[in-house]
Every structure is written in structure tokens, then in C-alpha cells.
């Protein structure tokens, strides 16, 4: 024993001596044993806001020493995120300094080959400008250029991407939002718009239902407010097809049949009506169609039917109906997953009506909470640019000339379907359709048919792989911007904490470069301004309305801390609904005009086809925000590979054991992924969390048809995607 130990040490000593040539401790910025000292005189702090597509939109404090970002922390002056970040937020230094970041403009020839060459910004702008001018000459307009931009960075100045396109002329635009439009329309039909209570107000709830909402992964900063309510005795109910981390903490978890949430709410409504727990006064005074809906329920809904449909026993429907209706105020939070179905918007309308039935709308501690855009009233200065003189546009159905809008949620199909003129060039920014769009094979085929593809990004993701030119995007630490949330009521400034790394540029800086080049090649061909510092561009986004809402006189006051909008804590507490009738429209003529039921009645869910009997649900991941973060080395260490969660009963039917590779497929495509057997799902639902792993082709969207959800068109231009109506077969792979 002694001998072997000495021998072992001898080997170790040899290793140490070779290390002296390369003392890694000297090479690293911060030796592992010592924390970066925030009180150091050379340490500077900056305010940032996480700009990702996330409920929480965290206030951040960034520590910078000698121009290097040393670490990040939560901003203690942010009353909702309260000085703490999520795991993704803390991983930011690894995103900024990732060796995988795109550092320079690069071109790939041929497209898809992986043969990338570094080019100068001048060459990149020259190539792109000449292609734009060439297309304009050949087709007589800039309509062959199509922009697809969405949620990669929700900073207000990033709407300069849309502004880039406007400044070139009329272009083709991917219109819509993949994430949440069915629910937005539901609340638009019912209340006039989406508008949730201040999430901090959940502390006042005496009963809380999280309906298809996994806050532990997607809105962690809301949980302390929920817990405060629970400490006072509030009960937490989670309704979800999956036993999520949030559901694991609930007082009552209900595993509902996917896409039948509306049936559950209707069953609850029936029991509430039968027992006269209805708030007749609130309902009749504030809504139209109230009695009509009550009559529908009495005639058409039974508890037996609701139980059969949802898989929830009758006594449980009765229990939560009684508790929800009688334990006031009761808060409901409707998640985005539950509306990603062909009847998703309708299910949200039914849940909205349940809130009205019980008088929980417009109350502190209550509400049917989905999201809001009340704090987003900026100028969108960077977005608004006139088309160059003589630009030819698309004549829309209303006879007006403008951009040609196509469906973001059926992007591959719609791009290919354009013929007059066809789409020949794509510009992608803040968007990764290669990973996030339905029917990945169709996306790949469509990209391959393009003449030219430009992508602005920070990492070589699937979309970049299908591009001719990639332009390196700054991270938000390298930009000035301002961010609002679609959930909480805070707004924060985002300072340039460090200089742009390598040759990266913000979207507005790219637009400036493009405008210079375009006008040099063809004077007057681009209207995007060619001057202004990043902070000046930010300053132009503020107006008296937003300053007043935030209780400040100058945007610079935000450097002292984020501000909360001066709004009542309960949405709709003034009773001024924004519908045509100015009341809650339980009976909604606008919905009827759009071919939907006027009333929140039951609409059938999609049934699984015989050949593909298993539902494949692909919710948001914990370690990533869509295709962002999971590729970083810290994330790859803690979560190295994707998994599919399969119920042991289902796995046994197909001879599948824990840790097997499983092929998930249907007529559209397939993926093969390692399984984890768990009873957190149900026997007819398999679950895998969408994400982009480093050096992996894993993508949950190969089997997903571009099936529209029922709503979205009214408020967002296009219906959503029924992401969770994805039916597959599985086999040992």
C-alpha cells in the first residue's frame, strides 16, 4: 500500500514539473480560490437586463475590471427579480467569452459545406448590398428579400432589424409569433387585450391555479410570491400533463389529458353554477353574453362528460371548482404550453370565462393571468424608416402598398409559395428557424432553394449552417438598450458594460454599415441613418408617456435602477375593458366574424391518428432558452445530453428499457434520443425538452407538422403553431 502510494505520487510529481512550463493559474483571469473582489477600486459595475424571451427579464449587475466582464449578479433594486438570476443568467460570462462565438463576418462556400472563410465587414457589406441591388434590378422591388426576426433579443433597439428592412424598401416579412398567439387572441376577444395582474400581487391570492405553467423552469422569480401566499394558507394547484418541478411542489397536482383544459374548466363552471357560487353581479355588470354562456353550460356540460374527457375524477373537479369559486381572491396563471393546440385559444377563452364567472377578474390576488404589453410603449424609433423614393411594394387586400407579410408559423411553405416576385434572399436576426420552426426538413429544403442567406448571430447554430454570410452579433453586455417584460411591470436600462468583442456589432450598427455601403453603390437606396452612437439610439426610444409611466424625467435615471410602471396591481381593476363593447365579451362577435365560436364553448381536441398514437410534447427546457445557452460548456457539463421521458408502461409495450436509444418518428421525420423512464409523464405522452446541444443534431421539430393553433390572427397577424399536437410512434432505436 505504502509502495503503491509512493509510486503514484512520483507520477503526480512528474506531471507537476511539466506544468511549470504552463502555469494555468497564471493564465486565468481569476484564480479559482479567490473571488473577484467587487470592492476593488478598478472594478466597475454596470446595469444590464437579460433580453431573452422569458417572463422574468431580470435586472442584472455586471462586474467589469480592465474591460473584462468578471461576473454577473442580480440587481437588488429590481423588485421582481430581487437581486437573483436563474442558472442561465449566471452562465452569461461563458456566453460572452465562449470560444465558439462568431467573431468576424464570415462567408460559407458553398452554403451548407462548413467551409467558412473570414471576410472583412467591408466585403460582407459589399456582397450583401450588391445582392440586394441585383435583386431589386431583376424584380423591380426589394420584395424578394425576406426578413425573419423574432425573439432572440427583445431589447427595444433591436427592432432596428425591422428598420433595416424598411430602409431598403418594401420587403417580405415573416409575420406572427410562434409562442403564445392563441392565448393572446383569446384574451383579446375576451378583454380587449392581454393584461395580467402584477405577478408580485400573487402574494394576495388565497388560492392559486397554475394552469400548464412550469414556473420553476420558466419564471422562477415568481415562485417566492406564490410561496408568500402559501405561507398565509393559500393552496397551490398545478394542472399539467407532466409532473413538472413546479407540479412536484403543489398541494394538488392534476394530470389532465393534454388539450382538454377547457373541458376541465367547463366542468368546474357547471358545478359552480349548480351550487350558485356564481358572482352574478360582477358577471352581469361587466360582461356581455354572461347568461348565454351559463345557459350553454347548463344545457351542454355535465360533470361526467368533463371527467371522461379530461381524465380527472368527478370529485376532484368538484373539489377544485368549490375551492376556486369560494376561496377568494383566487389567481389563475395560464401558461403558454396549454395554448399550443388546435383548440388552445378556445381553452384559454373558457378559462377566462371561468375567472369572470367567479368574479376573480379585476381583483388583487385574482386574475386570469397570461401576459401583458402595457410597459412596451416605446418609440420604436430604430424600426421606423421610410422606404426609399420610388420603392415598389406589395398591394395588400386593403389596396395599400407595403411589405408582403407571410406566415412566420408556416415559414418554409410560405416562402416557397411566393411567386410574384419569388423570395430569393433571407435575412435572419434574433431567430433560428433551423432549430425552432416546425417541419425541419421543409425548412432545410426551403433554405437550400434560396439564392442568398444572411444570418446575424453569435453562434454557429443550425440556421447559420444554412447561410451564405454570417455577421457576428454583440451580446447585450456590449450594447445600449432598454428592456420591458411581458409578465412583471419593471423596465430597466441595459448599459454597454464592455466594448463589443472581436468584430461583433449590434443590429443597429450593422444597419448603419449597410446603409453607408448601399448609398455608396446606389445613392438613395437606403434610408437608414448613418450616424448616432449606440446610447443616442437608445435615447430616441423614450417618450413622455413611458417616462411618466416609470415616474422619471429622463431615461438616464434608469442607470440608478430599474423602475416599476405606475399601474394598479390588478389588471382590469378599473373595469375599462378594451373590447368593442367596452365589456368582457363572453359572447364575442369579433370571434364569430373570424370564424370561431362566439362563446367559450367546448371545441374538440386533436385526436391521435391510428398509425401515430403517442403524443410528443416538447416544452421549454431548464438549461436553455430555446436554442440559446445549452451549447455553453457550463450547461453541457451539468446537462450533457438530451433525453426523452417515457412512462414505464409505454416503454414496456415497446420493449424499451432505461437509457436505451429510442427512435421517435412519424410520416414527416424522426429523431433518435436516449430515454429516461419516468412516471412524471403519462402512458400516452412522451416528453423531450427543445434545445440546441453543442455538436448535436438533436432537434425536436423534425416530426412536427406546421399545424396552426386556432387563434392568433386577430392580434398577431397569424395563428400560432400547435406544437403539442405532435403525434408519433416510438421504437427501440
Amino acid at each position, binding site marked *: 500500500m505504502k509502495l503503491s502510494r509512493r509510486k503514484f505520487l512520483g507520477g503526480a510529481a512528474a*506531471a507537476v514539473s511539466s506544468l511549470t512550463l504552463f502555469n494555468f493559474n497564471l493564465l486565468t483571469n481569476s484564480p479559482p480560490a479567490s473571488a473577484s473582489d467587487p470592492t476593488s477600486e478598478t472594478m466597475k459595475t454596470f446595469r444590464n437586463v437579460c433580453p431573452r424571451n422569458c417572463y422574468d427579464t431580470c435586472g442584472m449587475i455586471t462586474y467589469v475590471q480592465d474591460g473584462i466582464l468578471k461576473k454577473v449578479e442580480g440587481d437588488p433594486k429590481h423588485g421582481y427579480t430581487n437581486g437573483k438570476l436563474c442558472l442561465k443568467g449566471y452562465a452569461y460570462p461563458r456566453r460572452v467569452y465562449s470560444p465558439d462565438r462568431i467573431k468576424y463576418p464570415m462567408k460559407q462556400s458553398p452554403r451548407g459545406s462548413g467551409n467558412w472563410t473570414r471576410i472583412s465587414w467591408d466585403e460582407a457589406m459589399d456582397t450583401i448590398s450588391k445582392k440586394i441591388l441585383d435583386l431589386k434590378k431583376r424584380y423591380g422591388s426589394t420584395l424578394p428579400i425576406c426578413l425573419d426576426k423574432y425573439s432572440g433579443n427583445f431589447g427595444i433597439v433591436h427592432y432596428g432589424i425591422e428598420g433595416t428592412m424598411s430602409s431598403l424598401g418594401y420587403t417580405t416579412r415573416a409575420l406572427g409569433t410562434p409562442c403564445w398567439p392563441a392565448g393572446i387572441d383569446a384574451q383579446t376577444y375576451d378583454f380587449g387585450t392581454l393584461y395580467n395582474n402584477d405577478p408580485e400581487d400573487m402574494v394576495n391570492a388565497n388560492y392559486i391555479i397554475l394552469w400548464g405553467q412550469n414556473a420553476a423552469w420558466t419564471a422562477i422569480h415568481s415562485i*417566492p410570491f406564490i410561496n408568500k401566499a402559501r405561507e398565509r394558507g393559500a393552496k397551490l394547484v398545478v394542472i399539467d400533463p407532466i409532473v413538472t418541478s413546479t407540479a412536484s411542489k403543489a398541494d394538488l397536482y392534476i394530470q389532465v389529458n393534454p388539450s382538454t383544459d377547457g373541458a376541465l374548466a367547463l366542468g368546474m363552471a357547471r358545478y359552480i353554477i349548480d351550487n350558485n357560487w356564481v358572482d352574478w353581479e360582477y358577471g352581469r355588470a361587466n360582461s356581455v353574453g354572461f347568461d348565454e354562456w351559463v345557459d350553454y353550460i347548463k344545457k351542454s356540460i355535465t360533470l361526467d362528460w368533463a371527467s371522461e374527457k379530461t381524465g380527472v375524477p368527478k370529485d376532484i373537479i368538484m373539489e377544485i371548482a368549490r375551492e376556486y369559486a369560494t376561496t377568494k381572491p383566487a389567481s389563475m396563471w395560464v401558461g403558454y404550453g396549454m395554448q399550443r393546440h388546435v383548440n388552445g385559444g378556445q381553452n384559454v377563452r373558457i378559462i377566462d370565462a371561468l375567472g369572470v364567472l367567479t368574479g376573480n377578474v379585476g381583483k388583487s390576488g385574482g386574475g386570469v393571468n397570461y401576459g401583458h404589453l402595457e410597459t412596451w410603449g416605446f418609440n420604436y424609433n430604430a424600426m421606423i424608416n421610410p422606404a426609399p423614393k420610388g420603392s415598389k411594394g406589395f398591394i395588400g387586400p386593403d389596396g395599400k402598398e407595403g411589405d408582403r407579410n407571410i406566415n412566420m408559423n408556416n415559414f418554409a411553405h410560405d416562402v416557397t409559395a411566393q411567386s410574384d416576385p419569388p423570395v430569393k434572399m433571407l435575412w435572419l436576426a434574433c431567430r433560428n428557424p433551423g432549430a425552432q420552426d416546425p417541419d425541419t426538413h421543409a425548412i432545410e429544403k426551403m433554405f437550400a432553394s434560396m439564392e442568398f442567406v444572411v444570418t446575424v448571430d453569435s453562434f454557429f447554430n443550425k440556421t447559420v449552417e444554412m447561410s451564405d454570410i454570417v455577421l457576428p452579433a454583440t451580446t447585450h453586455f456590449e450594447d445600449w438598450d432598454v428592456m420591458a417584460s411581458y409578465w412583471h411591470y419593471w423596465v430597466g436600462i441595459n448599459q454597454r458594460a464592455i466594448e463589443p468583442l472581436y468584430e461583433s456589432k449590434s443590429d443597429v450598427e450593422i444597419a448603419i454599415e449597410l446603409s453607408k455601403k448601399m448609398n455608396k453603390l446606389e445613392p438613395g437606396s437606403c434610408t437608414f441613418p448613418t450616424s448616432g452612437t449606440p446610447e443616442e439610439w437608445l435615447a430616441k426610444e423614450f417618450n413622455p408617456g413611458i417616462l411618466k409611466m416609470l415616474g422619471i424625467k429622463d431615461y438616464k435615471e434608469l442607470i440608478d435602477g430599474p423602475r416599476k410602471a405606475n399601474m394598479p396591481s390588478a389588471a382590469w381593476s378599473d373595469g375599462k375593458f378594451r373590447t368593442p363593447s367596452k365589456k368582457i365579451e363572453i359572447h364575442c362577435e369579433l370571434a364569430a366574424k373570424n370564424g370561431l365560436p362566439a362563446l367559450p364553448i367546448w371545441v374538440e381536441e386533436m385526436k391521435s391518428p391510428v398509425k401515430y398514437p403517442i403524443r410528443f410534447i416538447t416544452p421549454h427546457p431548464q438549461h436553455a432558452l430555446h436554442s440559446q445557452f445549452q451549447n455553453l460548456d457550463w450547461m453541457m457539463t451539468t446537462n450533457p445530453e438530451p433525453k426523452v421521458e417515457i412512462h414505464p408502461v409505454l416503454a414496456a409495450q415497446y420493449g424499451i428499457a432505461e437509457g436505451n436509444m429510442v427512435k421517435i418518428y412519424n410520416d414527416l421525420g424522426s429523431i433518435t434520443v436516449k430515454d429516461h423512464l419516468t412516471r412524471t409523464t*403519462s402512458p400516452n405522452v412522451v416528453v423531450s425538452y427543445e434545445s440546441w446541444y453543442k455538436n448535436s443534431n438533436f432537434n425536436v421539430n423534425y416530426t412536427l407538422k406546421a399545424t396552426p393553433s386556432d387563434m392568433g390572427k386577430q392580434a398577431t397577424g397569424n395563428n400560432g403553431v400547435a406544437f403539442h399536437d405532435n403525434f408519433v410512434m416510438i421504437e427501440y432505436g
Partner: protein
Amino acid sequence: MSKQLGFLHNSEKCVGCRGCEMACKNEYQIDATPQWRKVFQLREEDFSLPTRMFFSMACNHCAHPECLRVCPVEAYTKRDDGIVVHDPNRCIGCRLCTMACPYDRPQFNPVKKKVEKCNLCYQRIDKGEKPACVAACILGALELVEINDSLDQKTGVLKTLPGLPSPKITTPSIRFIGPKQGKQIRRD
């Protein structure tokens, strides 16, 4: 030793968000592989109902630290407040400590060819601040505590969790509050 600092982890509050794990990485800008702190999921089969329950563990700053005992170069020291500090400048990367620790918390860094571990943010503690993981815990599930009899006499405070090595080996300075399950209405 005048006292023993340690951690109290509450699985009833913890949702396994891994904020603590990443806050630790962020504080010290740790290389990719070593995980000074790690969130573990409790085994689903140990519960009557399927669930996602977690505990978070870094170095347990044991009263009888095996790492310190086996280290041939005295890279480990135990402070007056019980914190077990590892000095990377002394470490020769022999990995005896990684083999000796029942909790696998000294972590070998293949880049630096040395071991690293949680030093309980002693520099922060000396300035009166909380450790980075504790400061980052959104749900208040992770606390810095003094390990003593009065803590151990509190209801619900556990010295170990199912599946963990016996605390008799090293007397770890970690205590637990176990998970609590609600009611489930299931379709299987």
C-alpha cells in the same frame, strides 16, 4: 475550533433550479468540468408518487474531513470556523482526496491538472457576505448555518438523506429538511 459553519438544504423549498450551481461557477469563473456545487435529483422510486425533488451539495466542510487526512502535501486546512480550505498552489493533483471523499465533492480539473472545491466563499464570509450559492438561492432553500446541537434538535432537520453515504464517515457539516409531497391526481 470555535464553531462549525455548514449548509442547511431544504428539499421542500428547492425546485432544482440549479441557480446555486451556476452562481458558484459565475463567482469563481470555474472551468467547464469541475462542479464545486451540484444539484442532485432524488430518486423517483424512493417516493410514493412520481416527483421531481432535489438537494444541492458542495463540499460539506466535514468535522472529520477525509480529504484533509489523506492529502500528502497539506493542501487542505480547516479554519477556526470549520471551513475546509483547499489551496490550489499546494495541490499536486494526485486525486487522493477525490477518492477519499464519500461525497465526490473535491473535483479534479483536467485543464489545470489539479483538484478544486468549494471553500465556502470564505473571502465573502470574512467580509460579512453570504456564500454566492446561498445569496443566489431564489427560494431560500439553501442557508449558511452553524452546525450545533440546537440545530440538530429542531424538528425536521435531518443529518442525511436516503442514498447518501453514512454521516459517520466524515461527520459532514450539512443538514437537510426533507421533501414534502402534495396530492396527485394521475392518469396511470
